[in-house]
């Protein structure tokens, strides 16, 4: 069974392998073994630390197969992005150009360098083994982080964000970089991406535009990709939307990839959390239960003595207080009969339930219409 737990120094070999396999490079998963080791050590300290407000902590999670003990993915949370340094993004501003005399009223989008996300908690360092089939594992690994945040609110900021890979063409070139970044840096995107090692280095301020960029004045190819996720990031994008993240307020300064933000209070893992009591059951009983009553996939998380675990499990739907869990799930969660677990429905197919989220803000898109927002990619 797949489960998510905090990474440990003993995971270092597997993590190093993932770091090498990740394409493009993940800054939160350094190639250099020493740096990686420091990162994991920092994460171990962070999980253990008594934290009253977010600071330098980094929380690194791994996805493990309990049958083989093999690690199949990793994901992180940075408690305060750009800690001690500004974190740069483009803010998408709408400027109204209006003249009553001329009967003109236009909304013009402009991208302005912003530090607004500095210090905000950030989901980062997502890597999942490409051999895993289906989307369930990706949902589990990505959203386990929000399950952790929901259970440890003081460790994180009330709003969190996530930066996804932007669109590149077949040759790996980013049309947005070609139209904007290249003019300022005079280099290939990949070179800068590696040199930058993140979005918080001060050279960005020295080199990137200090004035807003009027979106309509950019070439069409560049306009089209603003806020658009890379094909490789489409699943991630949808997972974030499902969790309650909103696109379109910010985009990445290099490739204009989406920067998604969520008020933790409004995220699925907080709003739809149900605390349930573990009830022992065996596999066959569950199977029977599935036959007789309706059951749904849930994210189920435990936090016994600070050792966070998260799995996907089939639980009876409805508002029952019980969480009947089979032996391997109880083992993965390290819980026993009578323990409390946090449960969140994996897919709230029922978007119609209780007063629709004000997700409509998402309709304020930049330029070209987006199709994948609505498309259910499952």
């Amino acid at each position, binding site marked *: 069974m797949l489960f998510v737990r905090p990474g440990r120094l003993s995971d270092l070999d597997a993590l190093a392998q993932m770091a090498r396999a990740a394409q493009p490079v993940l800054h939160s998963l350094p190639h250099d073994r020493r740096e990686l080791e420091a990162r994991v050590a920092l994460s171990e300290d962070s999980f253990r630390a008594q934290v009253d407000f977010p600071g330098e902590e980094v929380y690194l999670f791994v996805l493990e197969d309990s049958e083989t003990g093999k690690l199949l993915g990793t994901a992180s949370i940075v408690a305060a992005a750009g800690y001690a340094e500004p974190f740069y993004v483009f803010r998408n501003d709408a400027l109204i150009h209006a003249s009553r005399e001329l009967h003109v009223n236009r909304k013009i989008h402009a991208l302005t360098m912003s530090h607004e996300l500095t210090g905000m908690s950030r989901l980062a360092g997502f890597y999942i083994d490409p051999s895993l089939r289906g989307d369930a594992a990706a949902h589990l690994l990505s959203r386990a982080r929000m399950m952790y945040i929901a259970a440890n609110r003081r460790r994180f900021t009330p709003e969190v964000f996530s930066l996804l890979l932007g669109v590149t063409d077949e040759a790996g070139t980013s049309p947005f970089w070609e139209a*904007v970044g290249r003019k300022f840096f005079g280099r290939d995107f990949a070179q800068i991406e590696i*040199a930058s090692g993140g979005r918080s280095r001060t050279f960005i301020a020295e080199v*990137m535009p200090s004035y807003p960029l009027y979106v*309509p004045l950019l070439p069409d190819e560049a306009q089209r990709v603003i806020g658009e996720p890379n094909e490789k990031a489409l699943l991630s994008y949808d997972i974030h939307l499902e969790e309650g993240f909103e696109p379109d307020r910010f985009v990445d300064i290099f490739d204009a990839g989406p920067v998604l933000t969520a008020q933790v209070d409004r995220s699925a893992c907080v709003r739809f959390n149900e605390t349930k009591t573990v009830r022992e059951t065996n596999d066959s009983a569950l199977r029977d239960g599935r036959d007789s009553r309706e059951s749904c996939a849930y994210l189920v998380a435990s936090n016994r003595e600070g050792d966070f675990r998260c799995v996907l499990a089939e639980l009876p739907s409805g508002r029952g207080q019980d969480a009947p869990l089979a032996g391997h799930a109880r083992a993965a969660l390290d819980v026993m009969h009578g323990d409390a677990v946090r449960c969140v429905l994996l897919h709230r197919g029922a978007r119609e339930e209780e007063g629709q989220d004000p997700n409509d803000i998402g309709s304020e898109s930049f330029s070209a219409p987006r199709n994948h927002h609505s498309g259910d990619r499952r």
Partner: protein
Amino acid sequence: MIVVRAVKTEDLDALVSLAQETGPGLTTFKPDRDALAARIERASKTMEGRAAPYEAGYFFVMEDTATHDVAGVCGIEAQVGLEQPFYNYRVSTVVHASQELGVWTKMSLLNISHDLTGYAEVCSLFLSPRYRAHGVGGLLSRSRFMFMAQFRHCFPERLCAELRGHFDLDGTSPFWRAVGSHFYQIDFNAADYLSAHGRKSFLAELMPRYPVYADLLPQEAQDVIGRTHRDTAPARKMLEAEGLRYQGHVDIFDAGPVLECYVSDLRTVRESVVVPVAIGAPADADGVRSLVSNTSMLGFRVGMAPGGVEAGAMRLSADDAAALEVREGDLVRVLMSSNKPKKD
């Protein structure tokens, strides 16, 4: 003699019919009777000293004294931007550099500016196609500098001239396509028309308020920043010969250049002299010709006469003196041509 003189109320009919020769495209001089009447009235007020600084503007007509045919116009605004703001883009340079990355890039930035506020502006030049020969274009253009030289106290320290920007053969402006068109729901001609009719500041309010990185614009738009319309190239040459220079200000719609200069640096101001008139047949001029103006404001007249200043006086034929409304002993301002005369 062909003279350029201060406009008079009686010129209205002639101006309306002259304006009909402009055809489409030129929007500063249209056969709009009311607008032209107002322009004449404003010029009269200005010369009589009754105009407030924000409205002061001079207007001149070119007339063939033999036929009384009015063949051209030109004007000077005493100080631009005092009523409605005078908008331009200033093309400035920004360097983005990082020692850490070894990056050094130089870019052009277009900043909305009112830098030229309070400058005098030479403008509204139109010459009938029937007269586009024999150097009368030069006379028409330079007449304004003769006027400024004579009445320096009426003008500020500096002047400018806006030139039409580059247009493609299909009559559209690449700069407008890349910039202005995104901020309006009207086409260039409509914008230009409003602009010529005192609505430019309305339009400018719709333009980008933040600086625009020129380097991020399409190449075709970058290429025409500060470039002159092909029909305007001769006018630019003439103004440059007079001492005006492109200093990085361009029009906000078509990116045509604005030429600038200190009034005291104008060739006409530096080189013209004031001498008395001597009536008589000019001596053998050897092809030398001079711009000659009288020194009256309301009756200002300037024309081209053979010869130059000799023995401290300007010798004029009786006809030319009559055309310029000067008599023996009156003072005239003279600018001797330094160009080799054209062979007829």
